């Protein structure tokens, strides 16, 4: 049986596909988007996260750390991430849930049984499971095995991908995916590289191929100020989508809800100063895509 690394399994999701859904978040991503709201999804290894809001500063964790990576300073708990080996013992001793190990290995059966807990809700709402990330297709063997099992049980399936993986990973899962939620961030390679630290050749090519093979694809565009919200960038994305014969775009306006997680992981959030787009800006973009390109646009999807 395959195993994979997962950092969250979220039940009762109203978005990310039809009906009520359970979203399985897989760890590890080839992109490093500046605006990423799930920074804990990027590394494919377990990470130690510390949430100072919950922390009692009791020091229980310090005494059990064999690496001596934890110290209590005037500003709270400090983690030496150079020496920390993410063994996770401190997290098991943390009474208030401030320390957590993000990312755990699961077998496909474990995931299947957790997803099936909400089967009644899927049946009544037309919902099911969505694999998100990170980049779920980076662990395509793991995902495939789960998809096969769940499809056999009649559960609707969705995959949210950014497309930056080799085509073969798509190829094998296609028969078992109800809907693809395909992130498209920018059509220009250089801009894409600037925003995500990777080029967009692979995502664009994969989307072209996928559109020929799968009829249910929803393109999702994060709306990032100073990156892709100008008319040209948006229309280029829209045109590309239309050229592939696709009809629906979801717009996901940039937000900063993930900001604290950067600090908690010892990472730096580059867009600290960037404000989320206004409702008006989002409406303008939405209207533009609808009127100029006759696309179906849903905000937040």
């Amino acid at each position, binding site marked *: 049986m395959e195993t994979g690394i997962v950092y969250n399994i*979220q*039940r009762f*999701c109203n*978005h990310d596909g039809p009906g*009520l859904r359970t979203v399985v978040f897989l760890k590890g991503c080839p992109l490093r988007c500046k605006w990423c709201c799930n920074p804990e999804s990027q590394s494919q290894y377990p990470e130690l996260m510390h949430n100072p809001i919950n922390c*009692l500063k009791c020091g229980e964790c310090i005494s059990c750390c064999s690496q001596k990576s934890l110290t209590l300073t005037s500003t709270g708990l400090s983690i030496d991430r150079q020496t920390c080996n993410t063994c996770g013992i401190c997290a098991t001793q943390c009474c*208030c849930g401030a320390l957590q190990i993000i990312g755990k290995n699961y077998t496909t059966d474990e995931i299947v049984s957790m997803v099936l*807990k909400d089967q*009644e*809700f899927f049946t009544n709402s037309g919902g099911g499971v969505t694999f998100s990330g990170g980049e779920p297709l980076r662990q395509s063997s793991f995902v495939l095995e789960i998809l096969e099992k769940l499809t056999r049980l009649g559960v609707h399936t969705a995959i949210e991908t950014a497309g930056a993986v080799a085509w073969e990973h798509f190829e094998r899962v296609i028969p078992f995916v109800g809907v693809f939620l395909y992130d498209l961030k920018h059509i220009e390679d250089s801009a894409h590289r600037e925003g995500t630290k990777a080029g967009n050749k692979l995502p664009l090519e994969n989307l072209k191929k996928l559109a020929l093979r799968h009829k249910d694809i929803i393109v999702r565009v994060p709306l990032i100020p100073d990156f892709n919200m100008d008319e040209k960038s948006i229309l280029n994305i829209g045109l590309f989508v239309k050229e592939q014969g696709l009809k629906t775009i979801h717009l996901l306006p940039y937000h900063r809800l993930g900001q604290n997680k950067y600090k908690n992981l010892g990472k730096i959030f580059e867009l600290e100063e960037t404000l989320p787009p206004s409702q008006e800006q989002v409406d303008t973009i939405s209207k533009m895509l609808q009127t100029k390109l006759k696309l179906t646009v849903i905000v937040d999807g």
Partner: protein
Amino acid sequence: MTRPTRWQKMEETSGRVKKLRHELINTTPEICTDRAILISKSYEETLSQPYILRRAYALEKILLNMGIYIHEGELIVGNLAEKLRGAPVYPEYAVDFVLNELDTFNLREADKFIISEKNKEILRQILPKWQGNTVKDAAYQLFPSQAKEASQDLICILTTLRSGVGHMIIDYKYGIDNGLLGIIKEIETLMENLDIQDPSYATKKEYYLAVIIVCKAAIAFANRFADLAQSLADSEEDPTRKKELLTIAKNCQKVPAYPAETFWEALQSFWFIHLILQLESNGHSVSPGRFDQYIYPYLKGPLEKKDEDQEFFKELIDCLWVKFNDINKVRDKVNSIAFGGYPMFQNLIVGGQTAEGECAVNELSYMCLSATERVGLPQPSLSARWYYGSPETFLSRCCEVASFGTGMPAFYNDEILIPIMLQQGYTLQEARDYAVVGCAEATVPGVSETWLPGGFLNLTKMIELTIFNGHDHVMNKQYQFKTGEVECLETFEEFKEAYFEQLSYYLKQHVACTNILDSVHGSLVPTLFESVFIHNCLENGKTSLQGGAKYNFTSPNAVSLANTADSLAAIKKFIYEDKTITWAELKVALMNNFNNAEQLRQRLLNLAPKYGNDDAYVDAIAREVVERFSKEIQKYSNPRGGKYQFGLYSISCHVLLADKVGATPDGRKQEMLLADGGVSCAQGRDKNGVTAMLKSVANLDQFKSSGAALLNVKLAPSFLKDEKGLSNFASIIKSYFMLKGQHIQFNVVDAAMLRDAQKNPEKYPLLVVRVAGFSVLFNCIDRMLQEDIIMRTEYQTL
């Protein structure tokens, strides 16, 4: 597309209804004295009469002499007290609290009542004469000492000590369709046919004479309104209003004496009957039941005729809906916390199946939903029944109305409630005809005395009494009943058994008190008018409170199942399995309310499984508590020859009882509330979303709690902002019902708005929220209850 707000929907009602609504919510409730004066006089005049006739003459005197009014614009008439939203006084139940609180009713933070100096004087004169002669006094004399102690210390709460029993759904159809004159004829025939050899000839004959007196008085009461309407019409200059008043006069001449014929007459007849029930006794939860079934025949014909004024039918319903909010009741201070927000629990249910098992949804079902949406007031407590065959359009309309945030309708599951009714001994036809009383208590209308106000038991207090071996460290008091030093209980099983012993002990005390109250109500305050509409009372020649009804039950309730299950789970895990916390350590921490033990509290709170997260470890414990309680309660019978059952709901008792329980092993501090609802999880502890919470709750064997299984869910308005959210909303309800949940209701309000309403109450005069099995105006409830509603987990869109 953005959906309209509840405020926009409320604009859709007519100018007349807006005016009536405005007057109502801008009136501070007042304590009224007419009823108290009249009943006192009557009791003095009838000293030598048999008790049953004294009750009849008393109600007659009230109905013939109390102050009545018809407000400008009203289409349905009939008032409970001489002032709008006024609360009459019912001295036969208790007078102690009225006298003690006369000067403080108007100072209450919530459930405030004003009272004029003149009325205070009147009450100070007449009420002392009642002292020693009330239900409360009679019961207190009879309570065994330990049982009395448990109730005084609020380990158990008795709700009918100072108030009537109420909690009924009578056979309204019988009254509206036949008219009281027809019914009087039936009673006369029964009286004529009485067998002179019947040993209870005398009591039966007295009973018949008594019910005839009250039926005639009810007709005379209606006729007083006819006269009033006529005289108002005589001096009315506006021709439209004049015409209305003349029709009102005609209606009140005709109903409830004669069978109703028009829709308007049917509503007026319904209202008089409904009103007189509440003048007879102040027991709340007098519930209209299946209104859309028994009223529909009066609307069906006119609706088919296109020339009739359809808008006027809607307006009539709206007027009646406003009227429901005029009914009020003054409770003592303690009960005003347990029942926060002037709730009257007049539960009106739509949809479901007919007695023959066919779909019961009709045009009136939808019209009732729309009336609640448009009028936007807390009463009637609107409910909806669902079964596998319910039309999707009906469920989706119910969801749409509920999405506006008034907490209505609440949803009930035929697929479990009908089997429950069958198991209770009702016939299939009766079972399918069930309706809901008060908060969430299912019963069969017109045939039952279910004694649903069987009081409340605080399940979590018994955890404390088990840990401290019968010692109450909050009150620093040792109770007689002990289950052993907790350190000597070597396994979790032993601890659990000790807990169940405590529970059984206090249940026994509670039943003793409840049965005494049952007998006292039957002998001192039999409800004659009610009994006319409860089947088999007339045949048996006694009221429902004396055992005349076809079916008899008593139904106490268990409060804070969630804190109990969470506490037991924490004890099991830390003390008995991991052995990482000792009893000594835990006891000290609990006694000190976790002062200097925050780390321990956090462990209890975060590292032990919590009910509401689809976690089998703790869910199994919750299920076992329900099962044991059910097994225990089946041992008991009531004086009316019926069995005990139990329900899981708390009204707002979880607020009242909270500080009576010290810190608990689930990590709750003394000042924190107990879990709301009945089967809801503790506030904010469900971390895995609605679906996981519902799985936990559905894991309880809800067949066992036949008295109710009340579940509160709070959804963020953003979840319901579009069609997809609405359709997912419906699927949540359906799924929960397929998992065998009994009942579910929703608060759809965002915390920010509630916070704003706390700061600026004047901005939200019409903000209705769901507390438990009832909705209230947010501004009318006290701060603790407001905080409770804000704190319950709000499910966001993810």
